[in-house]
């Protein structure tokens, strides 16, 4: 070991330690001056603030930890909705970008260029403050298909009322497990005998039949509860029953999915273009049908290119969902790093918990992606 290698390392380490030491010393002094003690005990205290939209039961008498869970679940909810729609729009637009039809191609290109060059925050504000504010009041709303009500106060959709919901869920789990077995069997059969089994149609069939059986014999029963208009006061109306999606959720999910879809579309386009023409021609020349070419040759190679950047976009979407704080959608940042922080004044604890939550989420996903990349990488001889 020579000095040229050790000295820079020592100096960096020293600098890092000095900075951290400086910060923590100041933090201690500041907290002593303000009479706060560091600790996470406040999490079990009564929170005494209300959240207007929550997936689990929550009111002011619950603890701060419960408020944290409410925020986390809301973040997960909007991210999942956003991811589903972004994927659908992104794949469609990405394929449209590859079309040889000039009009379709250009329309998709205009969409991509337009939506990705405008800040996401601006889009969220646009949907929330401008577009959704133009919707009618509850009493003037024309129902869509008779059961959906899109109003200025939110989107009211019918809800299912279940009997024996657990049996239904078991049936779906059973279907998934049997599909996994079918896949394993099909793979073995193809390796041994070279015969392909129609796995896709079998899986769809299983997914349909088992739940239907549970309806017929398992005593599962679902009825639909349609929202009904209700008068609150002289001029105040709302809908009762069904599920209410607040406008904050709608505008956030809309903006997130429209914005992220542009990036996913580019990933899809790059992935399909990344499969060389020779591959398709070679596959066609050994007698595969166009469907088989797509399924067995193009898609596996394209997915290898598409999936890593797309996962990155999903991660970005989840992180971007924290912009919810700007329109008062009660997500993790607003509920916990906003309201809870204001009430307790515990800046260090709360900001660190919030950051750690996002950090653990993205690090676990990136570890998974590294594993996945290694697994699907082409094994070169």
């Amino acid at each position, binding site marked *: 070991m020579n000095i*040229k*290698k050790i*000295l*820079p*390392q020592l*100096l*960096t*380490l020293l600098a*890092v330690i000095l900075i951290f030491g*400086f*910060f*923590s010393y*100041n*933090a201690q*002094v*500041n*907290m002593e*001056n303000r009479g706060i003690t560091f600790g996470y005990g406040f999490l079990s205290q009564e929170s005494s603030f209300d959240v207007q939209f929550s997936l689990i039961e929550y009111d002011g008498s619950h603890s701060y930890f419960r408020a944290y869970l409410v925020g986390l679940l809301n973040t997960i909810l909007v991210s999942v909705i956003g991811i589903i729609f972004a994927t659908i729009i992104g794949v469609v637009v990405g394929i449209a970008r590859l*079309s*040889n*039809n*000039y*009009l*379709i191609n250009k*329309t998709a290109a205009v969409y991509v*260029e*337009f939506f990705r*060059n*405008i*800040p*996401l*925050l*601006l889009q969220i*504000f*646009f949907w929330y*403050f*401008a*577009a959704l*504010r*133009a919707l009618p009041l509850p009493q003037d709303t024309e129902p869509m298909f008779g059961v959906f009500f899109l109003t200025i106060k939110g989107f009211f959709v019918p809800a299912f009322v279940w009997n024996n919901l657990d049996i239904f869920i078991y049936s779906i789990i059973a279907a998934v497990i049997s599909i996994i077995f079918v896949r394993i069997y099909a793979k073995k059969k193809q390796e041994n005998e070279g015969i392909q089994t129609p796995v896709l149609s079998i899986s769809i069939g299983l997914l349909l039949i088992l739940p239907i059986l549970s309806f017929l014999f398992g005593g599962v029963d679902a009825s639909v509860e349609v929202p009904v208009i209700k008068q609150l006061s002289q001029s105040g109306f709302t809908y009762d029953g069904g599920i209410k999606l607040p406008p904050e959720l709608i505008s956030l999910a809309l903006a997130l999915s429209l914005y992220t879809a542009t990036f996913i579309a580019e990933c899809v386009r790059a992935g399909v273009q990344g499969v060389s023409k020779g591959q398709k021609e070679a596959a066609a020349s050994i007698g595969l049908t166009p469907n088989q070419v797509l399924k067995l040759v193009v898609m596996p190679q394209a997915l290898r290119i598409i999936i890593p950047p797309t996962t990155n976009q999903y991660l970005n979407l989840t*992180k*971007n969902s*924290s*912009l919810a*704080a*700007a329109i008062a959608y009660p997500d993790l*940042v607003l509920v916990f*790093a906003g309201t809870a*922080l204001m009430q307790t004044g515990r*800046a*260090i604890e709360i*900001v660190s918990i*919030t*950051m750690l939550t*996002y*950090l653990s*989420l*993205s*690090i676990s996903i*990136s570890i998974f992606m590294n594993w996945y990349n290694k697994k699907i990488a082409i094994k070169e001889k």
Partner: protein
Amino acid sequence: MNKLNFLQPDKNNFNTYLYTGVILIALSIFTVFLNSFFNRDLISFLPGTISFFLPLILGFIGLHLIRIDYSGYKFLDSVNKNINTNNFNAFLSLLIVFVIIKSLPPILSWFILDANIAGDSKDVCTGSGACWTYIKIWFNRFMYGMYPNPEQWRINLSFIALAFLGCVGFFASEKFKKYLTLYYVVVYPIIAFFFIFFFISGGPIFFDFSYGIIAAVISIVLGFFIPSKFKMYYFIIVPITFYILLKYVFFYEELIELGKLEALEWVETGAWGGLSLTFIVSFFCLIFCFPIGLFLSLGRRSDLPIIKYISIGMIEFWRGVPLITVLFMSSVMFPMFLPEDLFIDKLVRVIIAISLFEAAYVAEVIRGGLQALPRGQYDAAKSLGMGYWKMHILVILPQALKLVIPGIANTFLALVKDTPLIFVVGLLEIVGMLNLAKTNPEWLGFAMEGYVFASVLFFIICYAMSKYSYNLEQKYKTER
């Protein structure tokens, strides 16, 4: 005369097919056009569903009839090839054309025909269209925030001067070309810093930090003349010495007295805002995040373990958290980490936070470029006897950076699009100003106009940036 087979148009009855098809298409487009522009419904005598779908069906049949391969007419062939290859494509093309025709009139009327721009109060906005008067009245606020009106020439002057100084590269003669990098990396940011932080704010030119800045600049300039063998020791010892000398020995009080710009009114950063703040924040973050990201990426690929793991930790931490929490940290948590008498301006804190955040992304992009270089480049440089820094500056980085131009441009675009987030700490750039103007009781109900205006501005800025990066990419593309 050959038999007509309408299911399979061919060249034999070419004219018949062509004329029938073109008439049908023209009819369908004409119907939709009349309907959307003049509100006349030619086919209203038909039952509802049919009259709704009739243009689509007519156009579809027309497109089917003119789908004749190798007709010999250039225009027809190109139409067939581009929008009319098969039934499905024809259907989609028609749909897009109809949607465009249908949506043009409302858009036109909202933007131009029914819009108002004259006058200077809300009362002139009576039409159903946009109220551009609102933008006109608030224009100064959207551009300059709360910056006092009589002082706004300072912002304009600084930006014009900086734009001119930024264009120097295009006019430099061959003789000065080799100094351009030095100019853009060191001199230009410092000039910009002086302009923005002293001319626009009008505060005292010399404060505690400026000793550090001056010390750093002098030692970097002197550093070019030091033999590379001693460079490392030099850069550790000399800047600190300079700082101490400047601060405690040489003219301390005198400089502060000298640096006060009595003529300019002091405008605190809280009053800055609007589009100019967007530019200021993006500009400084761009300048700072690139070198930090470069060093982080080099650190991540270094074979010195401590440096490597510190770099990995930095990169993964900043990449793992949303920017909004970073800004929260800089506004509520960071003051706890500083001594009570040390106050760092809000704007400076925000710029530091965004720079560190984006630097992690820049680092990952540059790492991609470094990894893409073949091993042979490193080996060749080493076999020529180059040291670590010489190898990277002369051989590795020029190639690696060339490769990652698109990635860096994307990161910079993301940075510009992230600047509106500074509303978290109470700084109002253009989107923040829009939200403020929207809640003004005199001007309620014009949110749409404001957001459309800002969207168009951002679109122009970001689109220009992405096109410029594409040009750069093409310019520096080398065959490999």
